[in-house]
């Protein structure tokens, strides 16, 4: 069934967007930074998984784990080196720094891999045919993994002490150190979590779409950012919601209209939406005290 097939496509695309959007939204919630280098960390994870799979010939699970740990550490180091010194600076400087870090990552990887690479398939390719609809093992894995991780993240943020600290920082950063919480530690943990999710997205993406190149992070990064904003930036459930909405819009547009209209419709809808509800679906307007 045609519609069901498209629905499955939307689920898969939305899951990947969601994983990346979660990282964006978490970082923004804590330190109000749009981390433009996020999409490029996604790309780095894909390349690390390539290196591990091709040169060390590791199977899937070690590849995934090592890539995730590596990129999470990388994300944390970037935060320590580049973003921390700018905590008191005007916000725009940090954003420019993030842009710079992103550019640096892209071109650094480009130095080593100017040609697109193919990632070997580490997962069994099983396709199930259910009444005309083809579902592959990969589809199921991606969607399942994404939902599981989102659930775990939700639990962490809402039910643990660390999560409570994160939420506290997003509400009022100055008071939190007075309560005996190490702000630096919490921010680092946030980055590790957020970048780790993007890394998982990177590895799964490279399995699903097999060809990777240094510029793949840019467009996906912007799109994930849009998902986070639609759902309400700073809100975890909002990011997931936004991701599936965006994926749905993109695939539906391509289904009914020539594909060149896709970006146009997506962004016009976004603009209109923001004009009426700038804080996103699940976001709350910040109360400005004068």
């Amino acid at each position, binding site marked *: 069934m*045609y519609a069901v*097939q*498209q629905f499955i*496509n939307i689920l*898969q*695309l939305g899951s990947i967007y969601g994983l990346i959007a979660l990282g964006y939204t978490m970082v923004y919630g804590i330190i109000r930074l749009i981390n433009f280098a996020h999409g490029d960390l996604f790309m780095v994870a894909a390349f690390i998984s390539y290196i591990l799979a091709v040169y060390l010939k590791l199977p899937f699970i070690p590849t995934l784990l090592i890539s995730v740990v590596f990129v999470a550490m990388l994300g944390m180091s970037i935060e320590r080196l580049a973003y921390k010194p700018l905590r008191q600076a005007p916000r725009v400087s940090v954003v420019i720094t993030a842009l710079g870090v992103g550019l640096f990552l892209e071109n650094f990887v*480009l130095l080593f891999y*100017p*040609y*697109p690479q*193919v990632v070997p398939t580490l997962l069994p*390719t099983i*396709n199930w*045919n259910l009444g005309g609809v*083809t579902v*592959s093992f*990969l589809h199921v894995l991606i969607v399942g993994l994404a939902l599981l991780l989102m659930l775990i993240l939700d639990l962490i943020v809402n039910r643990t002490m660390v999560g409570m600290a994160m939420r506290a920082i997003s509400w009022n950063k100055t008071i939190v150190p007075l309560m005996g919480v190490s702000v630096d530690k919490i921010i680092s943990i946030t980055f590790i979590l957020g970048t780790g999710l993007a890394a998982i997205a990177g590895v799964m993406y490279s399995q699903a*779409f*097999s*060809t990777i*190149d240094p510029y*793949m992070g840019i*467009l996906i990064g912007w799109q994930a950012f849009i998902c986070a904003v639609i759902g309400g930036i700073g809100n975890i459930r909002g990011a997931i919601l936004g991701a599936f909405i965006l994926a749905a819009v*993109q*695939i539906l547009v*391509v*289904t009914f209209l*020539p*594909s*060149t209209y*896709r*970006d146009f419709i997506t962004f016009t809808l976004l603009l209109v939406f923001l004009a009426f509800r700038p804080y996103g679906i699940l976001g709350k307007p910040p109360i400005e005290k004068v």
Partner: protein
Amino acid sequence: MKKTVVVLLVTMLTIMSMVLVGCKSSAELTIPIGLNAELTGGLPIVGASCKNAALLAVKEVNDAGGLDVGGKKYQIKLFIEDNAYKSDQSVAVTQKLITQDNVVAIIGPNASAMAIPPSEIAETSKVLMISPWSTNPATTIDSKTGQPKKYVFRACFIDTFQGKLDAKFAMETLGAKRIAVMYDVADDAGVGLSKYFKETVEQMGGNIVAFETYTSGDKDFSGQLTKIKQANPDLIYLPVMYNYVPVQIKQAHALGITAKFLGSDGWASDELIKLGGKDVEGTFHTAHYAPDIATPIAQNFIKAYNTAYSSVPDDVAALTYDSFGMLFESLKTAGKVDRQAVRDALANMAHYEGVTGTLQFKEGSGDPIKSAVILETKNGKFVYYATVQP
């Protein structure tokens, strides 16, 4: 602080101007030729092949003592510029080659999307430009007058010919009646080819059941492919560049599509097999030459290229080599290192025996009359299947 800034600024500007002024190239008994290639960006393999073939061609001439023009021996000086697969960069480096490096002719770019904008610049600046691989007819046609350009030539066949022969091959040889097409709207080669292909298929009584598009940079084709699957075609025509083909065919197979695949000359790169693996087995595409039916001229070239670069030269390399061959011939005939003379000599060249076959130039046209070959992907290699005459 302000003073330091001023000092810094002034010194920088002065040193800069000295560096730039000092960079004037001296041309004593050298012939400057420009190469505009896609060294970085989306099609680096194309750029690498082009550059390798160019270096080989120039080295062969220089090692033999130089090119004999008008009784004097000249060394060839090659200025290699990268257009980074961006059309504005392509234009910028063309301007640089023409005005700063004072080249007598430019070889490249290869991709049609990269070649069409600079061709206008070459035409207005009256500098000879030969594109080895651009197949879109617009490269040699003046956009304002609709007449062929005087200064732009190419070494390959054009898309009106290719689109037609692809359609004929699909319907007659592969027996397809229901055909789907997917192409990149931002890629001139694909846009032109799809148009001519569709026209011919419909003329021959075939049925185009799907005509899908995507834009350069897209990675996810599930929407378009699901639509194509719904239309149930016998064959899918993908006149796209080699870097998209593996992803598209893989996604198609993941969706359960069993149709045959036919491609254009944009497929002609070993990268496609490397990236596509088993999924591209059994596909067909058009190409400019086939190493396994090589003529003696071609065999010499293949041997030299293999010795220098340990790989078999692809279409782009062969066509670049031929472009340089034609340019050298024209320089010799012209008798002097002059842009206009070289151009006239090339325009008057009746035919040229190259690696990719016999190139014949009709009066007033920059497009050679050539035959094409069809290659099949068999056992992880491109294998010669058939030749198609114009």
